[in-house]
């Protein structure tokens, strides 16, 4: 969605236009849910967090600064809420015994639901600051600049964290025989 369209929809929301609200929720529900799901590893928690994210965003819409992208703002809320949810739960996710997939290409491997679960388990073993960059880069398709805006960290830090996170992911996936 273009920044101009977002800005227009937000202004209309601020004037009480519910059609604009429906358009914004429709646009961002899926990406916010996916980011939360990959960060939390649990569909119920992801749904809860998605609800909270939108409620908070629209409750504090007057605090939104149009100088920044709505996309970055709502993702920042999503990441913060996901971290809060993790802190609230603090339960280790049980490891799942996966069978090694017989598919060969990365795409084929990844499409297997067992593999998807296996990857999720590896993601959950990463430290939060590593997990979040992997989620934003690979599951939310954010650029370095966008990740930097969302997390309020320099692009250099994004790069180094992403590299370290991938190295760890590679090891974890190999250990689990997923990859």
């Amino acid at each position: 969605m273009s920044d101009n369209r977002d800005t227009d929809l937000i202004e209309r929301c601020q004037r009480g236009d519910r059609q604009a609200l429906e358009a914004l929720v429709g646009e961002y529900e899926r990406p916010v849910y996916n980011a939360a799901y990959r960060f939390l590893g649990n569909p119920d928690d992801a749904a809860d967090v998605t609800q909270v994210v939108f409620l908070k965003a629209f409750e504090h819409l007057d605090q939104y600064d149009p100088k920044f992208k709505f996309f970055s703002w709502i993702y920042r809320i999503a990441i913060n809420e996901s971290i809060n949810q993790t802190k609230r739960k603090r339960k280790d996710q049980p490891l799942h015994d996966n069978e090694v997939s017989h598919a060969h290409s990365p795409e084929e491997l990844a499409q297997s639901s067992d593999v998807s679960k296996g990857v999720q388990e590896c993601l959950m073993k990463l430290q939060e600051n590593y997990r979040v960059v992997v989620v934003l880069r690979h599951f939310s398709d954010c650029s370095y600049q966008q990740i930097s805006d969302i997390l309020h960290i320099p692009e250099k830090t994004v790069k180094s964290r992403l590299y370290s996170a991938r190295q760890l992911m590679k090891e974890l996936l190999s250990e689990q025989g997923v990859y």
Partner: protein
Amino acid sequence: MLDKHSIELINAGVDDELGPEERKELDDLLESSPEARELNSEMLLLSNFLDALPEQKPPSGLSHQILGQIKLPRKPVSFSLREAFASFQLLATGAAFAAGLLLTIGFYELAPRQVSSSELNKMVGTAVIDKRGLSSQPLGLLELKESWVSGSVTLEERQGLLVLNFDLNSVSPVEVELALMGAGLKFAGIVQEVNEPGRADEMVQVSGGTVRVENQGRQVFVIFLRNTAEKESGREINIEFSSGNQRAVKKFLRSS
């Protein structure tokens, strides 16, 4: 052993975050270093693997739940100053004008609730303020010298209210917008002093901490604001003027 720069280059290449020069540098590196090629292959494979994981579908009904819980600000009250003025004229007396009184149109309190249009009509002409009789403390002056709008805005404090006095002149319609929320302010009322005959009607819109006034021609009006912040120092009052693609932002910095 690859150095840090080479590793970063490979990763940025995998993420398609390289400019043409860096891309060339990476190509040269991959051509000359087997170690770089190996890392590049590993990273590409992993990246493609992660990217190919299926997107998760949110539970059905989630968006409805979300929409059901979000309360938006109520639609703003919009009213025409000219219509209000016309209504008031039936009530106003010539003596009031002769005395040089400031005619108050739609001077009203919005908070803690919004005011309906019918209520606004009842309020028309309910307040007459003698500007000369009020003690005021000047706090600042802004001058506008744009090609499309000129004039001035003064800020003063009057009987516990902050008062913005606008004296504007424009050929085309100009929108004046005040964002109050971040400034720790609340809209308290608006007064029109001069209305040039034959000009387009002016509109006032108040919603979600924003006041918008659209006007054209010579316009003198006063906006009253009430403080909501405990600490005023350092807060700005931003006033945005726009007409078509043209835009100017002016600000008052409030100090204790």
